[in-house]
């Protein structure tokens, strides 16, 4: 697990504030109801910070953000260099 992935997991745990919930790279977040659509923006902003990329929402579907592993794969696929 890279430090960025670890930081993302910690960020998500803070966001959902549910004691007793453990998540890893492959835990479904959106499709399990842990994260609602209004929280996706926080994940996308964090992903931009961690990857130092600009990620246009127009190229991302909520399903691309369902797990931490998918988030980083999405950043790799559609992320652009910051202007």
């Amino acid at each position, binding site marked *: 697990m890279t430090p960025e992935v670890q930081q993302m997991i910690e960020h998500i745990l803070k966001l959902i504030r549910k004691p007793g*919930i453990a998540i890893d790279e492959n835990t479904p977040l959106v499709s399990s*109801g842990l994260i609602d659509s209004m929280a996706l*923006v926080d994940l996308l*902003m964090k992903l931009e910070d961690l990857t130092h990329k600009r990620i*246009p*929402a127009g190229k991302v*579907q*909520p*399903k691309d953000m369902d797990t931490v592993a998918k988030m980083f794969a999405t950043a790799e696929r559609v992320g652009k260099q910051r202007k």
Partner: protein
Amino acid sequence: MIPYANLIAALDAAPGDRPFVTMWIDEDERETVTFGEFRARAREQANSLAAHGIASGDRVVLIMAQGIPAIVAFTAAMMLGAVPAFLAYPNFKVEPSKYQSGLAGVTANLSAKAVVIDKDFPQEMLTCVTLDGGSLLLRAGKTLSAKESSELRTQIRPGDLAFIQHSAGTTGLQKGVALTHAAVLRQLGYLSDALKIDPSNDRIYNWLPLYHDMGLMACFMLPMVCHVPVVMQSPIDWVMQPEAMLQVIDECKCTLGWMPNFAFQFVPRRTPQNRWKDYDLSSLRLLINCSEPVRATSMQEFENAFSIPPGVLQSSYAMAENVFAVTQSDVSTSGPTRIVVDAQTFRREHSVVAAGTENSSTLTFVSSGRVLPNHEIRILSDEGSMLQTDFVGEIAIQSDCLFDGYYNRPDLTEQAIVDGWYHTGDLGFLHDSELFVVGRKKDLLIVGGENIYPQDIEELVAAHPAIHDGRAIALGVYNPELGTEDIVVVAEVEQPALLANATELEQELRTRVVSGMGVAVRMFYLKPPKWIVKSTAGKAARAATREKLLQEHPELNGDRSA
């Protein structure tokens, strides 16, 4: 007044070289069609639909992602005199079988001739739109040979149905609001006068979904009929990157938009503060708060963050059953009227007594403005009698834009329209002839401007073997952080011992709700048997259970709804 016999005649009169819809994908990618190009594409699509046997009066369900092809297909159906209805796109969170059964209900109720999907509708979601009734499944955007592309000669009369709007959720899908061309044109006439629409200088910004009345009317019908350009984003893109809205308004110099209350907080809070100043929103003439109760704090937050001058943020009260707006605040003033009232009198006597300045024992309400021409409002008591000004009751409306009833559902229509008055289920009061909306009488949750029926959630939760039948209640609790309601569910387990595994059970229930409806529950409260308050008929009593939950869980008391 709008001088056209029907919506298509209004489109035909638009200047061909004026931009109509710009679809914004991101800063490097957008697509624009002029009114002329749009008409040509819609005619071509209409011919294609006609070749599949779609004709005047046929109901056509459209399941298409937000974008120009969806608007083209909707207009094409109207060109044939057919009656289109947008449905929400399948959400990847929702099980295909659930979506499919909702769709089956709609197509059966409308006796839909066809369901139209995108040209690129994802293969893996095709099971969502498997149809077993008599409806055809068609793909939009199929082009035809020039020979088949003949001139359309459909006669559309003002009293003909133009389209059908649905609200969200399984329950909402049973309520198709059918609207005539004449009613829609009357509404747009009133609205464009109230907003002083100037087609050559205005440009609308929109992220609202087109299956929602605010998206469909304010951001598709109004631009089409009044010949105003509109710049559009997909609602999903907006929710994932609300900051992009600021960029769109700045770059495209948009002048006009509509959003539900929560968005006025969501955008500033989800845009890093050091970038607030990067956007020039001075082109904005009006941004209208609509479809959730209007909160003064939410408006203030948006104004402060982006240095919005007074008079830009305005308010309106609208619903699909009335085509769209019932009231609109006066756009020539510095903003909607605010009233500070004594909280105790408001809660105990359901009436409004002005209280001077704001403090801990007052409540502040924001006006949604006065009624549009030929609209009337009554405030009704629980017994149905008319209440005086300054008393809180159910809002009932009458107008020349009002729908005739829910399509094919005389039973639901009869409950909703009594003696010509539509009972909205919203609670409010009149003060100086202005309407103030304060909450809901009907058991409806409004989350981010979307209507969610609690029964749909309760059914999913109570179907779990660990939950006692009929002992689940879904509530909307106002979350001041978000500026909208949170979904809170309280449910009784079958046996107290089941509470030992509450975390796992909660997660199973959470997944059930999201895969059934696509919405996430913010808080779950699992309770021992007999915790939920029952009515004398033995049914779960929503209001009393709500009181009990709020008392036992003070963390929910950010709630300030009436």
